[in-house]
């Protein structure tokens, strides 16, 4: 089975949010409130238990030229965010029930009939994607439209995208397409376009990767994400040391100090 991916090209995104709507409709994701955030035209603000695709509205300085506007208008960048479907996924490693699995398409999928809502995936996702839905109790995130992929269809968001900003397909083919695209953009003078895919970190790359302009951190795409399993070794070593000292200290204390004659234990029985 081929490993599939999302290549989201922010230079083609027009901020229409058709992907957010298509995702909600196909996956029957509940409403997440009707709140005016005051942050550009973004009122959903981020990925969460009830927002699995999220269009970011990044406001950049005025820049004339490729992709820019007239000098009296700001430059807008839109980028549709989604679960990154990490190569080394913190949520999948941490899930104690085995609810979170790797599908045959390489995606990271939460089995809703297994999840017991322990909340550990929420704190082990380095991208703040997974969240527990309060009225349901289980954790939710993008399923990579596992059901549609099994039926040979593309995910709802990619299908709905009117500008092909969201491309879905074979991961390696998408990476080649991204390389070609970035070369084309650079040749056209858009030199601040970069591809965000943290392949040289412990995350080992993501199956959903992005082409953005400027600093990826402006899009809340961290430069050096770490999969939390990297902290396991120092933490368990510390725990083993602590356990050894605890045991040794207890043995030593009782060996060194004889029972006190003033002991007045009453017992519980």
């Amino acid at each position: 089975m081929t490993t599939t991916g999302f290549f989201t090209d922010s230079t083609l995104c027009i901020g229409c949010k058709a992907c957010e709507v298509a995702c909600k409709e196909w996956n029957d994701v509940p409403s997440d409130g009707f709140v005016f955030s005051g942050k550009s035209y973004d009122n959903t603000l981020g990925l969460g238990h009830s927002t699995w695709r999220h269009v970011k509205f990044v406001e950049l300085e005025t820049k004339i030229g490729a992709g820019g506007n007239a000098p009296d208008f700001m430059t807008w960048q839109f980028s549709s965010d989604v679960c990154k479907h990490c190569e080394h996924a913190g949520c999948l490693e941490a899930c104690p029930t085995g609810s979170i699995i790797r599908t045959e398409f390489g995606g990271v999928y939460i089995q809703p009939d297994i999840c017991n809502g322990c909340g550990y995936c929420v704190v082990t996702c380095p991208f703040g994607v997974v969240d527990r839905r309060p009225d349901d109790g289980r954790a939710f995130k993008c399923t990579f439209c596992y059901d549609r992929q099994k039926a040979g269809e593309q995910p709802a968001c990619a299908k709905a995208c009117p500008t092909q900003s969201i491309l879905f397909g074979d991961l390696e083919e998408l990476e080649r397409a991204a390389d070609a695209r970035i070369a084309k953009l650079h040749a056209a003078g858009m030199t601040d376009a970069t591809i965000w895919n943290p392949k040289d970190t412990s995350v080992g790359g993501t199956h959903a990767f992005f082409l953005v302009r400027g600093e990826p951190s402006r899009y809340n795409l961290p430069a050096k994400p770490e999969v939390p399993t990297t902290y396991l070794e120092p933490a368990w070593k510390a725990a083993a040391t602590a356990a050894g000292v605890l045991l040794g200290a207890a043995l030593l204390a009782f060996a060194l100090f004889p029972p006190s004659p003033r002991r007045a234990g009453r017992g519980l029985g």
Partner: protein
Amino acid sequence: MTALSYHDLPLLKSPVWTWEVPAYFFVGGAAGAAAVIGATAQLTGAGKDLVRDARWIAAAGAGLSAPLLISDLGRPERFLHMLRVFKPQSPMSVGAWTLAAFSSFAAAAAFADLVRRKTDWPVKLAGDASAMLSAATGLVMATYSGVLIGATAIPVWNRHASILPVHFGASALGSAVSLLELRDHRHSALNALGLGAALFETIADVALEGSLAVRIAGAFSGPIPLALRLLGARKGAAVSTLIGSLLTRFAWIEEGKTSHALRLREPVGEGSPRR
């Protein structure tokens, strides 16, 4: 200069855990350390009363732990899914299995003690074996909660991944000693262990970079009981240690709920969250 994040919104999600989790860290840790004290006291021939009370504290703590953890689940009725798989790479999976084993052994050890006192059935060997196994799993109970929060994406937790297990282990030992002392056990070994735990907690309270809440909580399990023990006020020290040990765990969980925003103030574009 451009901002370092998207509309100053946090990248990470805040932990969804409620009060049950830090309460469990406290209860489970104290129970685990009590099992260790009970087993070592037995091995070294210390008083029978001490051994018996340690076993009962371990069993009581184990009995409280599971309900606390289950009530924090989003779907409590699915708690048995925790034992569907065993994943060594998941501290929560390791913890769930350890708690299951520890609870069984601690309950068996206490029950054997009860049976021995009420009947003349030959349960001593089974009880002692259970007590030793509860001590072995109790060592994990006392320390793994530090691994559980250390191996996460939350910066203030993972920065302390290699100290939190020791910190929690020391305060678990202090708590177990304190509970036994409040049951009127005056064995000098308990005071020595209490002194050692309080000394380590005093150093940790100074060395760890934490909020004011973490430091105040640490004072109750570090310098305050250390001073009280040196003055001979063992029961006062015991009460202070228990309060500090409970507060410390609440403070650390709360610290994680605020530190997800720290990710913004760090130079996101440059370094890793690890030091």
